[in-house]
């Protein structure tokens, strides 16, 4: 009966250190003051009990037994005073210390084992890459230029001469490209998509027309707008916000 109880307890130990701690606790002694003869004897009893019941004793238990016996023999040898610091138990003590610490940490983790159990997470969304690279898309500049030529032509008929070169006009009338870029942005903000014709519809003077066209080209280059020349109508849509800061 007595031995049976013993064997039941034996099974519970995680390892030799746990057994050793158990023995120290049972004897009410601290790990810093191990009565090595007594504890070694008790430890051996446990191992004997194991074997008596034909239970497998793992090598780790035997290893610690050997260590205990070694310490015991060292402690039984006469010692010089100055060697006091070199207690043969020291190594074992530090291991027990560390193991105790880990046991405490394990208790903490046990308490928190399900702390995250009540939170659910979400699978990542599939974020589409910016699929169409608008700058790479087939873009028909000729079509845009001829469309602009048509618009210029119309305005020319409405507006009497004199004619001057584009740059001269821009410079003279002080229509800045930046201000025209802002105009385009305003239109796009309001209407979302604007046809090429509609964009120039309300512009009455050639300098403004040219500046607007230049602004459009610059905004295309900076990928602020996308000009789609693939359909029946030339459609302008905004890609992103952005400023044209440099005048040219």
């Amino acid at each position: 009966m007595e031995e049976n109880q013993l064997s039941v307890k034996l099974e519970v130990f995680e390892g030799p250190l746990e057994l050793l701690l158990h023995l120290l606790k049972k004897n009410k002694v601290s790990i810093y003051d191990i009565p090595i003869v007594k504890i070694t004897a008790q430890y051996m009893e446990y191992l004997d009990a194991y074997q008596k019941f034909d239970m497998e004793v793992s090598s780790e238990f035997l290893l610690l037994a050997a260590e205990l016996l070694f310490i015991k023999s060292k402690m039984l040898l006469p010692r010089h005073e100055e060697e006091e610091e070199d207690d043969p138990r020291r190594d074992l003590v530090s291991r027990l210390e560390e193991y105790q610490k880990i046991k405490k940490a394990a208790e903490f983790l046990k308490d928190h084992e399900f702390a995250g159990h009540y939170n659910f997470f979400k699978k990542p969304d599939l974020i589409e890459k910016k699929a169409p690279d608008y700058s790479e898309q087939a873009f028909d500049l000729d079509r845009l230029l001829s469309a602009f030529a048509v618009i210029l032509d119309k305005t020319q008929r409405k507006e009497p001469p004199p004619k001057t070169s584009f740059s001269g006009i821009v410079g003279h009338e002080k229509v800045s490209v930046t201000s025209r870029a802002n105009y385009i942005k305003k239109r796009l903000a309001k209407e979302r998509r604007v046809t090429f014709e509609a964009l120039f519809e309300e512009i009455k003077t050639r300098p403004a027309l040219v500046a607007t066209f230049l602004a459009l080209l610059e905004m295309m280059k900076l990928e602020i707008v996308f000009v789609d020349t693939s359909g029946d109508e030339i459609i302008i849509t905004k890609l992103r916000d952005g400023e044209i800061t440099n005048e040219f």
Partner: protein
Amino acid sequence: MSFNPGSVIESILFAAGDSVSRKELADILDMSEEEITKEIERLSDFYRENDRGLKVICLEDEYQLCTAEQNYRYVQALAEPRRKQSLSPAALETLSIVAYHQPVTRGSIEYIRGVNSDGPVSRLLERGLIEEGGRLEAPGRPILYVTTQEFLRSFGLSSLSDLPEIETGIGAQISVDTIVMDEEHLEEPFAEEELSRETNVSEELETNQVNE
């Protein structure tokens, strides 16, 4: 509508569905990391004060959205039933060692526990609570184990620094890992001497296992 960092962070964390680093948020929002930290706090407060169904958790310097625990049972009704599987004492011990001593080799784990720990280590790897974190520059280049983000999530920790300090009482705390890894611990009185002894013991242990 003005630029609302909290709203943007909410969108990003939602879409990411995973943790996003403070740095990445700072880059995307063009704000400093301190500002991001403040915005995250504000978002957390907002969720709490308005009793929202969401929550921001912090995992070291990463953030993630999850559901608030008070709605657990409703969400559970929808999701696949979750098993609440406890870890064995051996696995908890092993996990503690990795948590406190990371990065740590299997040899060191076994030395501290005093027993072979192949089982618990594999179990923890399977559950995604620990993972390989490089190799030790030593003979045999043994694998070093570290805890994962999943470990923090599962145990409701925001950071490894949330782990309590464990008091051990008097005496120099000497463990294989602190000696081998951290040079600062080498200042401890018996460090050098310990090192050679412990190495022997570890080797002994390993030899034993091979023989088994």
